[in-house]
């Protein structure tokens, strides 16, 4: 027996958990080792202390508080419900809750946050993935090449030729990709697919008889349900040779408008990104009708 071993066995010795043989060996050793006796006394004092500590009781109040704990807000809501129900206003707390919820939704506008995330994704050159997942045609996704150097969404141009609508090869332009749409073959489904959220159609047409043609176009737009957008009237004369149309139109009437306009000459439409998101089934169009005789240079929209 060594002092180290004796101290290691002290706890079990004090508890009487050692074999009789070991117990007698320990008795003999402790009798002759004052250091081990001191250690044993400490251990016995410790045992006495923890016995008292074990007798500490949890008070009834704390016990109940732990058993029936409720957060402060829940307690207050319950008290408020009780108070209002005693006065016959049982629905009052729920009314306030609904108002608070509605207010929260109105302030945070979670649906707009979702939209902005889609826009960010598009700007991070993930546009093809977004478009595919949104159900846009593969041809359109291919046209919008993600390797385009501009971080913004590339433009998409449509060329509506007068009277005949045949497919034409894409141009070699690096800035924009031209796509001639054969609308008869693709049908109305693809037209609705192209009505992108946050986009507008920009087009211009050169007419031979400016003075009489632009009012006809305005009338047609109005008859097709076109409503003025922007800050100027429909058909605002930017100058004597240029009429400016900024309007929204039901998507279903777009083809008819294009057909009508194409009777005056060749019109070129391009789709551009726009912060304003149009309602489902509506398309925003900016059309410049210009005098085909003078062929003035285009200027920025107001």
């Amino acid at each position, binding site marked *: 027996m060594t002092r180290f071993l004796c101290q290691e066995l002290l*706890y079990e010795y004090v508890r009487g958990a050692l074999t009789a043989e070991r117990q007698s060996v320990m008795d003999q050793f402790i009798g002759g080792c004052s250091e081990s006796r001191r250690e044993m*006394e400490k251990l016995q004092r410790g045992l006495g202390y923890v*016995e008292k500590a074990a007798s500490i*009781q949890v008070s009834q109040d704390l016990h109940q508080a*732990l058993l029936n704990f409720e957060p402060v807000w829940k307690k207050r809501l319950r008290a408020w419900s009780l108070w209002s129900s005693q006065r016959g206003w049982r629905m009052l707390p729920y009314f306030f809750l609904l108002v608070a919820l509605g207010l929260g939704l109105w302030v945070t506008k979670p649906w707009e946050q979702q939209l902005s995330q889609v826009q960010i994704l598009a700007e991070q050159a993930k546009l093809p993935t977004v478009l595919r997942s949104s159900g846009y045609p593969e041809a359109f996704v291919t046209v919008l090449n993600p390797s385009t150097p501009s971080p913004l969404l590339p433009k998409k141009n449509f060329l509506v030729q007068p009277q005949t609508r045949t497919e034409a090869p894409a141009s070699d332009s690096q800035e924009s990709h031209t796509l001639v749409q054969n609308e008869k073959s693709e049908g109305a489904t693809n037209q609705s697919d192209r009505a992108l959220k946050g986009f507008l159609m920009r087009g211009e047409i050169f007419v031979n008889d400016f003075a009489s043609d632009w009012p006809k176009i305005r009338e047609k737009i109005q008859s097709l349900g076109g409503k003025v957008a922007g800050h100027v009237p429909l058909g605002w004369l930017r100058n004597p040779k240029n009429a400016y149309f900024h309007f929204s139109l039901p998507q279903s009437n777009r083809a008819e408008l294009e057909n009508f306009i194409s009777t005056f000459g060749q019109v070129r439409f391009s789709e551009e990104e726009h912060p304003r998101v149009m309602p489902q089934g509506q398309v925003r169009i900016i059309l410049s009708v210009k005098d085909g005789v003078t062929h003035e240079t285009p200027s920025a929209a107001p």
Partner: protein
Amino acid sequence: MVPSVVDTVAKFFYFSCLDEALSFTASLRVLSDLRANNHIDENHRSQWIRTLTKWRGRLGALNSKSWNVEGDSRGGFELPPDFDMGAWMTFLSSSDPREVEAVLLSRILSFTDEEIAKGLNVSVGTVRYRVGRGLRHLGGFIEF
């Protein structure tokens, strides 16, 4: 809910930090944890130890809250009249936390050595060694 769970948990945290408000918060968490995992009954005493020791390590990250409506967090424990908490306080601050834990579980909360060994994932011999060593340290802090 079995009352002994509540008392065991409350006492464990009280002796672990000597702060009634903090021990109340931690006790709520542990009881909620045990209830959620269906470990509230006496058959899961080793699991109690696992949960208790897990939350003991997180005491510093908890915000203490008062347990009574007056906002006063004292009076949750009934101490014997001649009991001196000073020795435990010294023991708590100056000894190996594993020894403190072993003494607390074994001698104050009356868990068996086997339950502690299972709960702490150590051998029974290790538990006894830690308890013996802890008790000797604690005895050294007691004035007589």
